[in-house]
């Protein structure tokens, strides 16, 4: 039934994602400082009824740390995707304004796309000295090119639309046309673009943090949890490595499905 109704599918995945977000926000309130509480009588305890996901080397509850890590990822991802969309939108608008700016923007896009994402992320995080802010800026600064390309193509196409040409012929300025005709048309593209950027942003944030360039090791971010788990892998403490990554996978999957379902529905 559902598979043939794109709108229903989109609604369904939106509902699931919303539930996930609400759960994460609620957990932030309910958890308090559980993610950092150490229990020295229960170090490296395997998953059980008392310790759902097991505990780490300092006896901290892994389920609480995973939830806390996911909400950090969520906020970082949100901010980065938003910032990235803003950059893409403004650069696409600039590119549509004049030929020279267009050439400049496309050179910038080519430059950014020719360096592997992760290396560029490292360079930017290095330049900003690490930390949460640096990660957000780095992720935002590297993820806009693909969306900017889509928006630019859409803008160039729209510029030839009859209503835009009539508006121009009637003597309206470029800026007027841009913000009252073109931008409203682009907003749905931006929304979907941001949603599709979001999973990439989260994955790259986690990767950067895992390598040691991102969030500080004192925060229970997913990348930090997995980097800590690396030290205990050979001891067979599997839960440290499995659960945080599984949580991240589920969150990314939810958002990726929402993005592609929405794109199909609109």
């Amino acid at each position, binding site marked *: 039934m559902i598979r043939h109704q794109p709108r229903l599918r989109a609604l369904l995945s939106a509902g699931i994602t919303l539930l996930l977000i609400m759960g994460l926000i609620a957990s932030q309130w309910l958890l308090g400082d559980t993610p950092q509480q150490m229990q020295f009588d229960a170090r490296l305890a395997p998953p059980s009824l008392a310790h759902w996901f097991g505990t780490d080397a300092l006896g901290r509850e892994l389920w609480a740390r995973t939830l806390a890590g996911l909400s950090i990822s969520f906020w970082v991802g949100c901010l980065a995707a938003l910032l990235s969309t803003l950059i893409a939108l403004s650069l696409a608008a600039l590119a549509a304004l004049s030929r020279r700016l267009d050439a400049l923007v496309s050179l910038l896009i*080519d430059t950014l796309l020719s*360096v*592997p*994402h992760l290396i560029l992320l490292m*360079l930017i995080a290095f330049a900003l000295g690490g930390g949460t802010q640096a990660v957000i800026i780095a992720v935002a600064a590297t993820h806009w090119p693909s969306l900017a390309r889509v928006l630019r193509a859409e803008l160039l196409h729209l510029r030839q639309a009859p209503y835009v040409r009539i508006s121009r012929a009637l003597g309206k300025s470029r800026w007027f046309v841009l913000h009252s005709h073109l931008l409203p048309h682009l907003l749905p593209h931006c929304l979907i673009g941001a949603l599709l950027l979001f999973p990439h942003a989260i994955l790259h944030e986690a990767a950067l943090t895992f390598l040691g360039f991102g969030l500080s090791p004192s925060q229970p971010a997913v990348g930090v949890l*997995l980097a800590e788990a690396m030290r205990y892998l050979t001891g067979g403490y599997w839960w440290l490595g499995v659960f945080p990554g599984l949580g991240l996978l589920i969150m990314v999957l939810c958002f990726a499905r929402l993005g592609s379902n929405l794109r199909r529905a609109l």
Partner: protein
Amino acid sequence: MALDVRLINFITQELAQGIAKRLARLTLVLLCVALVSFGLMMASPIDPIDAYLGPQMAQVSPEQRELIAQRWGFDAPPVVQFSHWLRQLLSGDLGWSHVYNQPVSEVIGQRFQRSIALLGGAWLLSALLGFSLGVVAGAKEGSTLDKIISTYAYITASTPAFWLAILAVLLFSVFLGWTPTCCAGPTGILSQQVSLAQRLHHLVLPIATLALLGIANITLHTRHRMLEFMRSEVATHAFAQGASRLDVAWRHGIRHACLPAMTLAFASLGELFGGSILIEQVFAYPGLGQATVAAGLRSDIPLLLGIALFTALFVSIGNLMADSLYGVIDPRIKLGDL
């Protein structure tokens, strides 16, 4: 005869022009990469003198610092520093890596030799497997096989690369004990004495993990192309003539889908390299990716810049190949568009 000669002349001229245009663009982009990465390094709050001195930082007086700054040219304005660096770069001198205590070009050369086995193996495997899975899934939309393959591709597309590597280490190295947990050879043996079999044994798991991640993208893309083709008029016509689904997919669909898949394979080299950084880190494989992380964490600026430029060249050549292949495989695409 005369027409043929003229045509050939025309084509070679067009081709040469296309290639010249591409190369000019490549140079410009690389110059921009150099400028951007140099600018980022200049903006970094990490003091290059501190990074150079390392733990001896405390034993150096301010006067000596000034001397070091003068010796390395840190007191010159950024533009002068950049032009100096660029001139050295053009003469083939990438600088000195203080982490490895070797010239940067040597570090990159040695490390890349180890990484190329990992990258190449994973690249070939993911391209071939990804393409065939995509064809199989796209040939019959909605079949059980299609559902399994697409679900698999959607899930791996959202999987963090390093997490998959951690799972692989846990399962195959720790619990099953089939493969070693680290490095490019057994510990305690000189790298020259490691046999080919040992080398492969250490490479199997990293290659498999990296390939597993690369497959998703190509599979989804190829599947999409195949679906598109199976709904097209050409396919309908073939069906009407009595051709079976297998026949249509095998004879026509593959040709339709192979070009975009190949382009994607070449265009995804950057992604592949990014994945290899994470996977080398998890498997402690001493390749270029691990050197990148070490350079970044220990502020080895010349090495970091060198790697950024090198990978940009690597990715750009991949893109160039992707574009050129288009013209070679599909002659309908005009040479002038190269």
